[in-house]
């Protein structure tokens, strides 16, 4: 039995009051709060052994190396990766997606598929790769409720398809894509699958081997880890065959100077993708975050969020003037709800009002998913508001949010 009150007490930011009121943080889909366990792990690096890992052979360096290596192992365990070397540290999911888009070998004249529901970071790198190499690109349109019709995938995926980039859980609609089916279809046609797991990995059990995705992009900052950290998971055979995105120190086994030429020999993954001095504190924090979430249990986290979301959805659906974007089928949702209030001309006003009056922190705008907003006829200037729930939210937060919404609607009529 998870003690959610104890979990909540792990997060120091929630101890703040602003203008004498507690904070109701509902923006974890953008940035998750950080537990003391992660902060302690990072502070320990900076306070006790702030040295270069993998280079310096003194005691501090040894401790930094050990902690850095252990962190990768923890993350590989979190994803159930077959090999630690399949987890590459990046700055964020955006960089992970860009590395694949720019470096994976794709046949000439082949086709990339992505969707109208992608975060800009999931679509634009592949749009640009298609432009760069003269590849075709086809967009699978999401349904208005944010789900996908598997028939659309069957129609789009053909023997010309070399790669699919698809968001596993949408940061706008919260809908979880039928990833297993998409992977099976794609592999059947010889295509690779890049799964954008920025929203999925923090909230659901993610087993990259069971899913059989070829690549997965993860934002560590959305899973209680530090900012400036992400992970690119890739099957080893793909990572080994990929070109590098950055070159330099730490990517090489040898660099000789012969006959007036500089001759490098590059290391295998993960080092070949991790040029330069790394974010040791960030990696250590990422490992600590993975460990923390696993100690709570990803199935428990998923259940907890959905239990809160179920209450929110039921009440919002009953509220006049509130229009929800996305399915209300809890079984295929991550714990967020995106909505409009038709008595308020801009979603930014919803967010500003809730923040100013009640310290309720939601996100507003187009959430870096322009195409789906345009598809739904929502002017970006109007945008949508999004409340996202995570492990530290509770029924009090839900009650405060719903009460705040009622006050907002009343005040805006």
């Amino acid at each position, binding site marked *: 039995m998870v003690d959610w009150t104890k979990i909540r007490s792990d997060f120091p930011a929630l101890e703040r009051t602003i203008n004498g009121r507690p904070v109701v943080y509902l923006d974890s889909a953008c940035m998750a709060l950080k537990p003391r366990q992660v902060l302690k792990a990072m502070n320990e690096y900076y306070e006790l052994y702030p040295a270069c890992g993998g280079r310096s052979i003194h005691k501090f360096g040894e401790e930094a190396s050990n902690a850095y290596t252990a962190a990768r192992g923890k993350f590989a365990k979190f994803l159930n990766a077959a090999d630690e070397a399949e987890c590459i540290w990046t700055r964020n999911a955006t960089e992970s997606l860009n590395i694949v888009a720019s470096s994976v070998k794709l046949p000439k004249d082949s086709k990339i598929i992505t969707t109208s529901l992608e975060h800009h970071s999931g679509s634009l790198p592949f749009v640009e790769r298609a432009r760069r190499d003269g590849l075709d690109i086809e967009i699978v349109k999401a349904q208005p409720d944010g789900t996908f019709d598997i028939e659309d995938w069957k129609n789009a995926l053909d023997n010309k398809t070399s790669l699919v980039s698809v968001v596993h859980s949408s940061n706008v609609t919260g809908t979880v894509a039928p990833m297993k089916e998409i992977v099976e279809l794609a592999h059947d046609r010889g295509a690779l699958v890049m799964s954008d797991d920025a929203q999925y990995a923090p909230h659901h059990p993610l087993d990259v081997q069971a899913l059989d995705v070829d690549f997965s992009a993860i934002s560590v900052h959305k899973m209680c880890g530090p900012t400036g950290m992400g992970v690119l998971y890739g099957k080893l055979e793909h990572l080994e065959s990929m070109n590098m995105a950055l070159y330099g120190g730490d990517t090489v086994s040898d660099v000789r100077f012969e006959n007036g030429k500089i001759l490098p020999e590059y290391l295998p993954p993960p080092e070949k993708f991790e040029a330069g001095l790394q974010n040791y504190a960030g990696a250590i924090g990422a490992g600590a975050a993975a460990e923390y979430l696993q100690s709570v249990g990803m199935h428990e986290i998923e259940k907890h969020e959905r239990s809160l979301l179920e209450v929110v959805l039921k009440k919002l659906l009953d509220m006049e003037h509130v229009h929800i974007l996305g399915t209300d089928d809890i079984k295929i949702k991550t714990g967020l709800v995106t909505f409009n209030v038709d*008595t*308020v*001309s*801009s979603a*930014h*006003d919803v967010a*500003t*009002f809730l923040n100013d009056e009640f310290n309720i922190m939601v996100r*507003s*705008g*187009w*959430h*870096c998913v*322009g195409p789906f907003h345009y598809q739904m006829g929502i002017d*970006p*200037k*109007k*945008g949508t508001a999004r409340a996202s729930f995570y492990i530290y939210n509770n029924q009090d937060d839900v009650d405060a949010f719903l009460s705040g919404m009622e006050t907002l609607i009343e*005040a*805006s*009529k």
Partner: protein
Amino acid sequence: MCTAPPRLDMSDLSKNAQCVLKILEDSESLTTTEILGIAATEKYAKLCVDCAGGDAFVAAANQLVEKGLITKKFGKGGYRWQLAKD
């Protein structure tokens, strides 16, 4: 003897804050959507730089309220923003 508070130099403000201030200087009072719409026009293209979602403009507007340079009031339809009256 009363002394006026130090006047804020425009260069102390971010570009997006300057953008919002300039838009409001040219209008009586505007809604959030109106501000975002004007920010996207050619006239303000050099000063107003943000994505179509307008998040940064609204954040800048809220900061200007905190600095006492503009005011906002919530009512029918949402917020209306205007320059602070002296």
